[in-house]
C-alpha cells in the first residue's frame, strides 16, 4: 500500500495527471463472455492497478431479474453494468437506478449511442447477421430473404429474445421494417426454423454442424472462424440490426470513483483497440475494424424506433414465443 502511495506521489511529481488514483473493489454485471471480460479487466488494471474488478456474467434478461431480486433484498453488489442493449438500460434509468456521469470522456463517440442525460454510454457496435457452416453450405446466403427458402429455413437456428438482449433488438428491428414484419418470422417458423436460447446456442449448433445456418451477432461467428471452426459470416446486403453494449454506473454503487474510472476506461482508445482484437467494431472514429470486417461506415444499419420497441417489448416476446415456443 505504502509502495503504491509512493508510486502515486512519484507520478504526480513527474507531472502525470494529478488525480487521486481510484482504489477498492467494484463489481461489474455484464453479458459479455467471461474469457473476454477477463482480458478487459487485465487491461483495465494496467491503467488502474488499485481497482479490483469482480465480474458477474450471464444473459441480459437473467441479469435484469437478478438485479430486481437484489433491489428487493435491499441493495445490489453491482457498481457497473455492461449489458447488451439500450432498451434494458433505459428501463433501469426510468426506475431511477442509474447515476449520471456528466464528465465522461465522450470525444469521438457518436451522440446517437449516448444517453442525453449521460447515464449510459454505448461502448461497441455489435451487428446481427447470418452465420453458416462452410462444410455444409455451398452458396452462402446474401440477404435476409435468402433465409426464406425452405431448405435454408429448415436448417436455421436463431437466438431468442427471451434470453438475449441482442436478439430482443434484432427481432424488434426486423418487425419494424415494412419489408419484413412478423410475416417474415411466420414464414421462417412455417418452414421449420427454430430458436435456441442465447447467441451461444446458435454458434454451438452451426459450428457442430447440427444446423447449416444461424442468425447471430457477428463477433461470435467471426471469433469461432478465427479459432478454426468451420463457419463463416455474412453481413446481409438488406441491412443489419445493431446494439451498442452500453455501460452505466448504478446509483447505489459504494465506489463511484472506481466505477467512473471503469466507465471512462471503457470509452478510451485503449479499450476500443482491445475490443477490436476481441472481434468488435470500434465505436470511435480512427480505429480500424478487425481483420475481415467491412468498414463500419459502409454498413447498412436498419433504422430502429427505440421508443416504439420499448412499448412493444413484452408483446414482441410473446409473439416470438407463440411462433417458436418458450
Amino acid at each position, binding site marked *: 500500500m505504502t509502495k503504491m502511495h509512493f508510486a502515486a506521489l512519484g507520478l504526480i511529481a513527474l507531472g502525470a495527471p494529478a488525480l487521486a488514483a481510484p482504489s477498492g473493489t467494484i463489481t461489474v454485471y455484464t453479458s459479455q*463472455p467471461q474469457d473476454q471480460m477477463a482480458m478487459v479487466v487485465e487491461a483495465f488494471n494496467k491503467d488502474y492497478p488499485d481497482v479490483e474488478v469482480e*465480474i458477474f456474467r*450471464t444473459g441480459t434478461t437473467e441479469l435484469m431479474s*437478478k438485479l430486481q*431480486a437484489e433491489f428487493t*433484498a435491499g441493495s445490489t453488489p453491482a457498481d457497473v453494468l455492461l449489458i447488451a442493449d439500450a432498451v434494458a438500460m433505459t428501463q433501469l434509468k426510468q426506475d431511477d437506478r442509474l447515476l449520471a456521469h456528466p464528465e465522461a470522456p465522450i470525444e469521438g463517440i457518436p451522440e446517437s449511442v449516448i444517453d442525453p442525460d449521460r447515464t449510459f454510454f454505448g461502448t461497441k457496435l455489435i451487428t446481427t447477421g447470418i452465420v453458416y457452416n462452410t462444410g455444409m453450405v455451398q452458396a452462402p446466403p446474401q440477404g435476409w430473404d435468402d433465409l426464406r427458402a425452405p431448405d435454408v429455413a429448415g436448417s436455421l437456428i436463431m437466438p431468442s429474445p427471451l434470453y438475449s438482449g441482442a436478439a430482443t433488438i434484432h427481432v424488434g428491428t426486423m418487425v419494424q421494417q415494412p419489408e419484413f414484419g412478423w410475416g417474415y418470422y411466420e414464414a421462417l417458423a412455417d418452414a421449420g426454423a427454430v430458436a435456441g*436460447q442465447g447467441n451461444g*446456442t446458435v454458434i454451438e449448433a452451426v*459450428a*457442430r454442424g447440427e444446423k447449416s445456418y444461424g442468425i447471430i451477432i457477428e463477433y461470435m461467428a467471426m471469433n469461432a472462424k478465427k479459432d478454426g471452426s468451420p463457419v463463416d459470416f455474412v453481413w446481409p446486403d438488406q441491412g443489419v440490426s445493431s446494439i451498442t453494449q452500453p455501460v452505466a454506473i448504478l446509483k447505489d454503487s459504494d465506489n463511484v470513483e472506481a466505477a467512473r474510472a471503469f466507465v471512462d476506461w471503457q470509452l478510451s482508445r485503449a479499450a476500443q483497440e482491445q475490443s477490436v482484437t476481441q472481434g468488435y467494431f470500434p465505436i470511435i472514429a480512427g480505429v480500424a475494424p478487425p481483420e475481415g470486417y467491412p468498414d463500419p461506415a459502409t454498413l447498412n444499419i436498419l433504422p430502429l424506433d427505440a421508443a416504439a420497441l420499448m412499448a412493444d417489448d413484452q408483446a414482441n416476446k410473446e409473439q416470438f414465443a407463440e411462433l417458436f415456443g418458450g
Partner: protein
Amino acid sequence: MALVACFVLVTGLWPLIRLFALALGPGETGEPLGLLRETLSGRAFGRALGNTLASSGGSVVISAALGTALALATGLLRLPGQALLGFLALSPLLIPSQIMALAWIELMGSGSAVLGALGLAPAPGSRNPLYSGAGVAWLMGIEHMPLVFIAVRARLAGLPLDLIEAARIGGAGPARILRRIVLPLTLPSVAAGSVLAFAAAVGNFGVPALLGIPGRFPVLTTLIYQRLNGFGPGVIGSVAAMALVLVALAAAALILRQLVLRWTAVPVPAGRSFTGFERGRWHWPLTAAVWAVLVALSVLPIVALATTALVPALGVPFGLGTATLRNFEAVLANPAIRRAFANSFMLAGAAGLVSAVVALPIAWLSLTARNPLARVLSWLAEPAHVVPGTVLALAMILAYLRPLPLLGVSIYSTGAILLIAYLGRFLPLALRPVEAALSASDPALDEAARIHGVPPLRRMLGIAVPAALPAMAAGALVIFMTAINELTLSALLWSAGNETIGVQIFSLQYEGNSTAAAALSVLALAAVAMLVMAADRLGRRLPPGALPWRVAQDQPGRTTSPR
C-alpha cells in the same frame, strides 16, 4: 440443545415452512389455496408436470433394467475385474449430472470423435438426439442406475447358500435357480431402488437443464429455474406452488418405498451366503458383454468430453495435429474460474466440517442421552435433504432475500446463503453414519461415566467422539465430494464473487463456449478422482458402508440406504 435446534431450523426447516405456507396461501383474488389453483391450472405447468412424470418414469425403466442386470451379472458370476466393474457401475454416483450431460452431448453429437472413429456418428445436419425428452430420460436413467444396483447387490450379498444348494440337489440349473429363487428374492429390492430412482429423477436439475432447455422439454425443476431467472422474485409465489408439487411427488415416492419394503419383507434364513455360480460356457460372452456395457456407459462419454476439451474450437475434428491444451490454459487463467475453485473448495469443506461437528451432539443427545426432542430434531433434519434441491434453493431465497430482522442486512447475494443451503442440504449425510456408529458402540462406558457423575459434555467428548470419529470423517468426506460440484442450489443462489465450479461449467456451456466447459469439467472430474482415492485409503479403516462406492465390495449382509 438449543444451539443444534437453531441450526436445523435456520439451515432448512424454517425456510421450507415459509415456502409451503406461501404456496398454500390465497391467490390474487384472495380465495383459499388460490395461488396453488392458479398455478396448477397454467398451461406451462401442465406441460412441465407431464414431462416430469414421463421423463422420470422413462428413466426408472432404464435405471431398473440396467441396475438389475448389472447387479445380477456382477453379483452372481465371478467375473474377472470384479472390483473395477463394481466401481464403474457406481461411477455415475460420483460424476455430477451437469458433467455427465456434457459428456454425453459430446459423445452423441455429429462431431463426436469417439463415435466418428467407430463410424457411428450421426450425419451432419442432424440435431443431437439427446436434446429431447428421451435424451433426458436416458441420461437420468443412467445417472440413477446405481441406486437400483446398490439395492440389488445388497440383497444378493445376503442370498442364503442353503436355498441354492437345496435347489441344486433337486437338479435345478443356473437359469432355473435364477428364475425361481434369485429373482423373486431380489424383486423387492429392485422395486425399492426404482422408487428411490424415481424420487431422484423428479428432483434432478443438471440433466434437464443441459438437455431439456435446448431441447424445449421443460420439466418442473427447469421451469422453476427459468421462471425465477426470467421474471425475477415477483413470481416466487407461483414457483413456490410448483415446488410444492415437486415435493409431493418425491414424498409419495419415498412413502411408497417404505411400503414396498414393509410388504415384501421376507425372512431369509441366516447362514452362509451364496457367492456366485461356477463358470460355464456362457462365462466369457457374458464377461465381454458386461465390460462392453460398462465401458460404453461410464468410460466413452468421459473420453468424448476429454477430446472436446482438447480441440481448439467447436467443429474442428479431434486429432493429434489439432489437439491443444489451450482450453485448459484459458480456463485456468480466468480469475472467475479460479475463484470458483476456491469458493467450491471452501464451501464444500465448511459444509463437511460443520455438518460432521453438528451431527455429533444431535446423534449423542438422541441416542445416548435419549433426549426425545433431539430424536425429533434428527428426524426434522431430513426434509431439507429429501426435497428436490430447487425447492430448497427457492425456500432460501424466500427466507433470506429481505434484510434480516435485527441485523438489517440481507445475506442474499453473499456466500453465506450458499453455505446455509449446503449445510441444510447435506447434514443427514453426516448425521446418519454418526448415528449408526453411536448406536453400534457399547453403551456401558457412557453408563459408567454417568453413574460416576461425569458431566454430559465431557462424556460426549471423551467417550462418543472416539467411537464416532471415523464416521464423522467419512460423513464430512462424502459431503465434501457431493458439494464440490453442486449445481442445483448454486444455480439459483450464486452471485458475483460467489461462483461455484458447477455454475461455471453451466454458464460456459450457455455462452457457447463448450470447449472451455469441457476443459473445466475434466479438471473438476480430476479433483473428484483424487478425492475418491484419498477417501478410499481412509475407507479401509471405516465401518462398512460408510463410502457409497464401497457398498458393493463390503461384506455381505450389510445394507445401507444411500441417497
